[in-house]
């Protein structure tokens, strides 16, 4: 199976789906002539032309709304945000328009569209460019929210998102674009709403998604050297969440660490813990521990940034704590 980058996997998904359905088009800042701020849309302008690969002005609220209008009348827009930080300018279109149109029209206007782009912190981009928005978006009924952590999942989930007749949010990882993995050449889909057990183990579950999947896998490798075997549940979708996969894992291991990139208060992990306490109360051998970003804006200085982010060390420490090893 070919090994390609997360970026190339997304590019393949876009190309295949645009070739498959001429209602699908991509719009956003620098997606065309520049080939994408992160080169995800490389070569697409040449292949599909400027009506289907649309360079927009820097006007997030405006072009997100253009996507909403186009979806209302039967096109299938993919709206790329250069980063999700900029999408805050467009939140009215995502929350008030895309997510509610079907409901408030009594079922008359489905919104077959995708909002996608990099989410979360990269390196030393400081406060305004380093935010993880999973919980913001997952809070909204009427949206689906996918958070792929590997090239395979990125391609399969983007293809599913484009074919879905609902508004789908895709949170990509800026730090994931260069990561590599096996991706089949043939057409395949990763279903929205299905978690993936990325690694099996019987001692403790780590429930996570997106960029933190890599952290969880590294933690599992390290812990295995000490004879601790981790079940790594990659949620892949945070709305709707695969509750069954979470509870199946916790009922097996009886211990859980919930790892997320964003902040603690009202974070995605809080929801995961709620599912665990509801369905696994009698199975737990220890309180669940959450690993997350420090409750501060992201600092610039390297050392402070490191201290703010969830990472391998914090994850390992959390596992050892729920196992009463420290």
């Amino acid at each position, binding site marked *: 199976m070919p090994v390609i980058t997360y970026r190339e996997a997304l590019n393949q998904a876009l190309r295949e789906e645009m070739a498959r359905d001429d209602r699908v088009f991509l719009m956003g800042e620098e997606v065309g002539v520049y080939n994408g701020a992160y080169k995800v849309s490389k070569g697409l302008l040449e292949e599909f032309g400027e009506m289907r690969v649309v360079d927009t*002005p820097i006007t997030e609220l405006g072009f997100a709304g253009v996507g909403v209008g186009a979806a*209302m009348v039967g*096109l299938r827009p993919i709206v790329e945000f250069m980063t999700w930080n900029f999408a805050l300018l467009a939140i*009215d279109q995502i929350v008030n328009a895309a997510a509610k149109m079907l409901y408030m029209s*009594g079922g008359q206007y489905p919104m077959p569209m995708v909002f996608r782009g990099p989410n979360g912190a990269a390196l030393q981009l400081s406060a305004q460019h380093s935010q993880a928005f999973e919980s913001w978006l997952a809070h909204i009924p*009427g949206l689906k929210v996918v958070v792929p952590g590997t090239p395979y999942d990125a391609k399969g989930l983007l293809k599913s998102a484009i074919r879905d007749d609902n508004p789908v949010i895709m949170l990509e990882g800026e730090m994931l674009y260069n990561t590599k993995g096996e991706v089949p050449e043939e057409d395949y889909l990763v279903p929205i709403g299905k978690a993936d057990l990325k690694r099996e183990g019987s001692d403790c579950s780590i429930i996570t998604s997106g960029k933190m999947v890599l952290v969880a896998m590294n933690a599992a490798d390290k812990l295995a050297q000490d004879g601790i075997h981790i079940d790594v549940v990659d949620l892949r979708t945070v709305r709707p969440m695969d509750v069954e996969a979470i509870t199946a894992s916790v009922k097996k291991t009886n211990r859980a660490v919930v790892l997320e990139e964003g902040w603690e208060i009202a974070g995605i992990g809080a929801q995961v813990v709620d599912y665990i306490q509801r369905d696994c109360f009698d199975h737990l051998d220890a309180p669940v521990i959450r690993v997350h970003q420090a409750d501060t804006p992201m600092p610039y200085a390297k050392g402070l940034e490191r201290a703010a982010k969830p990472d391998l060390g914090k994850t390992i420490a959390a596992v050892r704590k729920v196992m009463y090893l420290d």
Partner: protein
Amino acid sequence: MAAKKKSDKTGLPGDPELRRELLHSMLLQRRFEEKVGEAYALGKIGGFCHLYIGQEAVSTGVLSMLRADDYVITTYRDHGQALARGMSARAIMAELFGRVDGCSRGKGGSMHLFDRNLNFLGGHGIVGGHVPVAAGVGFAIKYRGGDQVIICFMGESVVNTGAFHEALNMAALWKLPCIFIIENNKYGMGTAVERAAAIADLSRRADAYDGMAGEHVDGQDVFAVRDAMERTLDLARRESQPHLLEIRTYRYMGHSMSDAVSGTYRTKAELDEYLKRDPINLLKARMMDAGDLSDEDVAKMEQEVKAVVQDAWDFADASPEPSPEALYEDVLVDTTS
């Protein structure tokens, strides 16, 4: 109703049938809204409810010029436009009553009237939010190579939002067949336009965008509105030229049901002055002066309209409330393409 303008012996634009249709459309909106006020007072209608009384020549003038395959999107003050587009009084009233036979199955209410069969893309509740959506519909028309247009109604307070400018910029940049209609009723809730916009002639906002025509029109004269639309539509269809039409009108009621008719922000004297230019009375007077309409005709039309509105009330009142299961319906669709 989109018949070409022509003159007959009365000297009035259009033909007798068209003129009656225009008057009928405006009168229906007026009596409908009066009935809505009554129903609101009785608690049949809840929530926010914004009446259209005084602005009927705008909706009728604009929408009487459209084709069935054109698109319309509007704000939360949407009852008049829904009626003028041809939505049934029954479906609208049932929506206001929160019943299953409402145009949005009781899920939207007064501010969110939708009708897919009429390409009526909804009333929208966030000031300015629907203007980029209109640009998106224009984009889709162009994407498919169609010759439809999208009409985007908005209140005058929208012209100060970022969404408005972002949308107009793209509509002009990409030459989208969008007709943006500012219904300038002089007040954004209780704030007079001159206290909110740093420009007196709102149609001049179009000057900021090459390739966008701006024009202002008397919104109490249905024929003037139709004339402006005729010029505008042709260019939008043939040349895909976007337009900004400022239609100057006046609302005779408060901003919403919780706002007194004259309120703290305008005087009774001002209201009385504008009542002299009631769009329905103006049209009636012109038709009567020209011998095109008799007192009997008016009485008959009033009777007809009254019956339609009463029927809408009765229908809405008899329509069931949505079932408890409806709560979770239409959050998502379970289809893929």
